């Protein structure tokens, strides 16, 4: 069963105007912070950056339905919008971009965008694609085991994990969904489908339109959502979260997104996407779309937007400055933390 979530205009949302504005703020913050990363990359100050641009609606909308610090979150490398919504600060992010010692994700050990936060239950991410999906199933399994031992729901947290449509080809994704389906584990599988795996278009990755069509083969719902519509993404996630908290099992959410940038700062998408395609893509910018929606609905004015942009720009400036000024990792620490230093 593939459910198609309604588009924003047809959606009766429980979200207040306040929520809608907050989501806008997170989307705008994600965009501006993301753009800033490219600037510092081009300045030669950060050897690698990778973007969430085009995925902001899916990420902010979906993460907005989670309980930060309670739910377990495993965002893949595009998940800047997710981690900001959950409460990571722009400075936290920029410390990773500059690979500083105080980078909370890895102390500068990993590439940028390999998110991690113990207080926020964001489990440390690696680079090999898809492994985190198995970990999310494992978190779900652990919750299931605890609840089974207690014979009641003593923990109604859920595990939320994201991955690209390219990554859905990996065996680990199958094994994880299958395990989650078998035991009705509280896991949300979130596929951010931007129709490219670096240069490989979707039709060279799979023989179907929708990754969500796989869910039926595991015994849980698959939902296709317009990933440029934050309200639809929120609503679809909310439904899935409630289902999981009740013990009714996982959902596969597929957010149809656009990758508005090359794959990463190492890529050149002009070598495999035509000028027309790149132009057409721009029409689906979720930020433009949502800005227009909020203005049409009278929730946001031009003045609001300008003020907000200015404020966020200051925030981003400050974060960049502070992060850049922070200390680089001490070379002597390279040998630390291979194993626990105390028996914790």
């Amino acid at each position, binding site marked *: 069963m593939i459910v198609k979530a309604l588009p924003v205009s047809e959606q009766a949302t429980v979200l207040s105007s306040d929520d809608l504005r907050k989501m806008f703020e997170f989307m705008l913050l994600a965009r501006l912070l993301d753009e800033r990363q490219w600037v510092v990359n081009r300045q030669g100050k950060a050897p690698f950056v990778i973007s969430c641009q085009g995925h902001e609606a899916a990420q902010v909308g979906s993460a907005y339905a989670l309980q930060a610090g309670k739910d377990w979150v495993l965002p893949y490398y595009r998940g800047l919008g997710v981690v900001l919504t959950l409460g990571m600060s722009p400075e936290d992010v920029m410390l990773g971009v500059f690979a500083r010692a105080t980078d909370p994700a890895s102390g500068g050990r990993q590439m940028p965008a390999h998110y991690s936060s113990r207080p926020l239950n964001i489990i440390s991410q690696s680079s090999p694609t898809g492994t985190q999906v198995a970990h999310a199933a*494992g978190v779900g399994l652990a919750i299931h085991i605890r609840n089974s031992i207690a014979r009641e729901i003593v923990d109604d947290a859920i595990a939320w994990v994201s991955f690209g449509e390219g990554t859905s080809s990996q065996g680990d994704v199958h094994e994880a969904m299958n395990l989650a389906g078998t035991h009705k584990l509280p896991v949300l599988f979130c596929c951010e489908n931007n129709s490219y795996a670096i240069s490989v278009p979707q039709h060279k990755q799979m023989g179907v339109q929708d990754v969500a069509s796989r869910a039926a083969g595991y015994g849980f719902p698959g939902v296709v959502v317009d990933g440029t519509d934050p309200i639809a993404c929120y609503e679809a996630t909310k439904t899935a979260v409630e289902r999981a908290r009740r013990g009714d099992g996982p959902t596969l959410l597929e957010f149809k997104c656009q990758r508005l940038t090359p794959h990463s700062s190492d890529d050149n998408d002009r070598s495999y996407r035509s000028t027309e395609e790149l132009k057409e893509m721009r029409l689906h910018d979720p930020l433009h779309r949502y800005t227009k929606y909020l203005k049409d609905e009278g929730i946001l004015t031009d003045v609001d937007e300008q003020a907000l942009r200015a404020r966020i720009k200051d925030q981003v400036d400050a974060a960049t400055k502070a992060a850049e000024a922070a200390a680089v990792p001490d070379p002597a620490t390279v040998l630390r933390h291979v194993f626990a230093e105390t028996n914790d």
Partner: protein
Amino acid sequence: MEMTLLEAIRAGLDEAMAADERVFIFGEDVGKRGGVFRVTEGLADKYGEARVMDSPLAESIIVGASIGAACYGLRPVAEIQFADFIWPATNQIVSEAARMRYRSNGVWGCPMVIRAPYGGGIHGALYHSQSIEAFFAHVPGLKVVAPSTPYDAKALIKAAIADPDPVLFLEHKKAYRLIKGEVPEEAYEVPIGKAEVKRAGSDLTIITFGLMLHYALEAAEKLASSAGLQAEVVDLRTIRPLDTATILQSVRKTGKALIIHEDGLTGGIGGEIAALVAEHAFEYLDGPVMRLAGPDIPAMPFAASLEHEYLLSVDDILDKLQAIAAY
């Protein structure tokens, strides 16, 4: 109390589960069936199927889900039915479990055990006989334990479960029921990372582990009675981290070293040990550091004639000892 190696491991698992509700077992056929070797027999009845859980037939998720559960706060004991079937889980072990702590700068950890029955001599053929220690001993962030006696096995499985970092726990299939020994009723400890001199001697040093330890001990006795030479036999017990101090101390004393493993020679763990000895005990050596190991073939064939040809015997070891002694 006398126990087999297998029973000792089961007893260790049982105690660990009784002591800590966070411990659970996850693997193929571990529940009702009690594992294809019966290591987990009775545990599902005792602790419930939620804590002794049959997994789908998929090794990557056995390890991958265990990693997630460990991050959540449980203490998974994953079972890989045969060590030969661990390869689909390589990525989860190498890239994930072993790096969680390092990559998060010490913030996350991955306290979990992966149990895997390894080794040959049971008509298991190419895919139910392999030794895998060399591959995983090359993975920083992972500990590799391979006890040879019931006494060590019971304590080490508990130490592995209590360890804050991921431990690959190797159990020799042929030794499971063949090797029996005393196991105290009362609590005792064997630390991970410590080798043990299982036989003292002054003429040469044998460094080994697993089933080969028992063969080596037999060969050492034969050498003593036939040639009056005393071989010191070091049981590694832990393959990573290697107990370099114990190894070097013995070789510095005897001046001669033989490293034995069942696994194929080239690229085996014997190379690492030989290199350590050759570098750090160079001035004490009275002869070349020798290795005795399986042949360089993809694994142990099924036909008895071929399997027998693959495996080292007590006599093979004795021959080598005599050659070294004669050097």
